[in-house]
């Protein structure tokens, strides 16, 4: 160490994926999910993966490409409606799905990211999603306890990074990526543009490099909109 240069490539990070790992993935409906790192995950051949992220993507986009391979055993997400294969795997008992309200899910990831031990909320009280959660009573009022969600690895997509791993995001592709970058034990960022240290305005940095372990230049997005994938 000593140089703080974290730039590497797909081949070098591929061995970081392992069987049975918990993987935090950035993105919202595939927007902001790092496509090249999902391909690395697929190519790595790992299985029994525990996934945590906003949703199941689409069968051909985002984490969905991995989910359809049946190598994930569980998924914590706020919805899976955009990936019918994920729904089928859930129904068939091949994928254990835990639904969480979207913002609560994000806060659970953040709670791990900032080194806290979970939080209390009334969101979900009196609903199916509130069942089986620990209840904490304070001053006569009941709250649900929501536990932190960390992961062995985190994969995120950023618009720009410097070699230290300071990250800048791209419009609505920011979404949950900053939280995931903070929460994972080891965070890998796939990045559109990598610049030297000092080339980013210190005010524009969203995730400080202290949270990022590896920076990989992207091979490109190859995005498909919903209407372009339907019927594929």
């Amino acid at each position, binding site marked *: 160490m000593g140089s703080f240069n974290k730039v590497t490539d797909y081949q070098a990070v591929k061995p970081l994926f392992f069987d049975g790992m918990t993987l935090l993935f950035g993105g*919202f*409906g*595939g*927007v*902001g999910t790092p496509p090249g790192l999902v391909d690395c995950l697929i190519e790595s051949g790992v299985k029994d993966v525990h996934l945590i992220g*906003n*949703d199941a993507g689409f069968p051909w986009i985002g984490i969905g490409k991995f989910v359809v391979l049946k190598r994930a055993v569980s998924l914590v*997400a*706020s*919805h*899976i*409606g*955009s990936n019918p294969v994920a*729904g089928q795997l*859930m129904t068939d008992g091949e994928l254990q799905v835990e*639904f*969480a*309200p*979207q*913002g*609560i899910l*994000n*806060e659970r990831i*953040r709670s791990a990211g900032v080194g806290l031990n979970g939080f209390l909320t*009334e*969101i*979900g*009280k*009196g*609903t*199916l*999603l509130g069942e089986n959660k620990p209840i904490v009573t304070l001053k006569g009022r009941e709250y649900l306890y929501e536990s932190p969600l960390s992961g062995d690895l985190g994969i995120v997509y950023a*618009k720009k990074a410097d070699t230290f791993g300071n990250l800048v*995001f*791209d*419009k*609505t*592709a*920011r*979404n*949950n*990526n*900053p*939280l995931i970058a903070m929460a994972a034990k080891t965070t890998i960022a796939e990045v559109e543009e990598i610049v030297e240290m000092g080339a980013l305005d210190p005010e524009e940095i*969203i995730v400080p490099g202290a949270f990022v372990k590896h920076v990989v230049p992207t091979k490109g*997005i190859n*995005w498909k*909109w*919903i209407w372009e994938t339907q019927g594929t």
Partner: protein
Amino acid sequence: MGDPRHIIAKRAAREVRSGMIVNLGIGIPSLIPDFLDPSTNVFFHTENGLLGFGPTPSENPDWALSNAAGYPVSIVKGASYFDSTVSFGMIRNGRIDLAVLGSLQVSRCGDLANWIVPGKRVPGVGGAMELAFGAKRLIALMQHCEKNGKPKIVSTCTLPLTATACVKRIITEMAVFDIDPGGLTLMEVMPGCTVSDIRNNTEAAFEISEQLKG
């Protein structure tokens, strides 16, 4: 009588007033912008991390600029991008003046069910629980009855709840109801309907507003 979805969206558009911060759910609520007076000056919020989105761009949509339903949008002056925790912080802390959500059932005390039909598709809850809980005002839109004629405005929801006692107003193609701690009140009868039609298609008991009686 036109498409009930359009009738509902057109009526709901009148709930959106200048100066509001508004979140529109998927389904019927997403049709509201088509019926807004162009002078209505609002900020639209989307859960994926944007306040101040505008119309669908006519060309070259940007993968990194979309709404929570995954469709490309543009931005208006004064827009801001933020991460998901800020987005939902805004929702839970009451900074959304108005949320309009599609619905499966609403009870007479304002319980909302709109995320799951057990045994059928389970897409997941998304941000609905937090919008229902946190928005300053929540309006539920739905067709008055299911396809088989079964009423969706009920004494007690039979579907799993999204949140309890959260809906302030229901708009259907037949009627507008308000909900307060006392229960359900019929506020408006939509064109072509009668109070009797509404009674016949509403399972929950309701009062009739003074202004309708008068």
